[in-house]
């Protein structure tokens, strides 16, 4: 269900695509009030797609209490349950070189806007009761 409505949201955002998919009165252009939290042009995050892209993340962010080794030592932040829009901004900032952690810069550089949206959707969806420690 969620998948379908997400798809519908995507289709509504892209005006020219597949008018046949629109149910019933598709006369009025859908109000540009898509589910996307960020800017209007940003891709919509898909949590299930994000789950397929976390190999590069879990080595550090998937281990409770994992510490960075370089250039400073501190525990890598918990990101499960963080605001989706904040995760997007953080990854964009690393990709743009505005935040300087070497590993995060290198990894973020490989991510597309869609990858970032998907990962943010995946990580923001974690519920506080599922973990902590």
């Amino acid at each position: 269900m969620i998948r379908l409505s997400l798809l519908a949201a995507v289709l509504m955002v892209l005006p020219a695509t597949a008018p046949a998919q629109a149910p019933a009165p598709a006369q009025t252009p859908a109000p540009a009030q898509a589910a996307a939290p960020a800017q209007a042009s940003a891709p919509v995050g898909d949590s299930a797609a994000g789950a397929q892209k976390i190999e590069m993340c879990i080595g550090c962010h998937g281990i409770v209490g994992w510490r960075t080794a370089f250039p400073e030592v501190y525990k890598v932040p918990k990101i499960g349950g963080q605001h989706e829009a904040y995760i997007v901004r953080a990854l964009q900032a690393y990709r743009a070189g505005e935040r300087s952690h070497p590993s995060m810069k290198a990894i973020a550089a490989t991510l597309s806007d869609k990858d970032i949206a998907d990962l943010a959707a995946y990580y923001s969806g974690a519920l506080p009761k599922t973990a902590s420690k």
Partner: protein
Amino acid sequence: MMKKPVLGLLAMMMLGAASAALAADLKAGEAKVKAVCQACHGADGNSQSTDYPKLGGQYPDYLAKALRDYKSGARKNPIMGAFAGTLSTADIENVSAYYAAQPAVLVTRH
């Protein structure tokens, strides 16, 4: 051969972390949070606005690192740069410890 120095270093790091945690003053942290941070991040670090990250239950050493970077300008954000600039080294430890001690709204997702 490598084991001893590595273990020693690890022990020193753990001691360092432990003493920093002990040194933090939660009461002073709470006072600073209420004066400086809570308007955006909330008193418990669980900001409802997506403009501001959630901080409740985050690791204190990560929070302190972020604040130090904002203060030094290594991490650029006009708002956080200004606020972090008003915090002393002790303030940074204290507010970080305070937010870390709040009910966790962040988790490690595997």
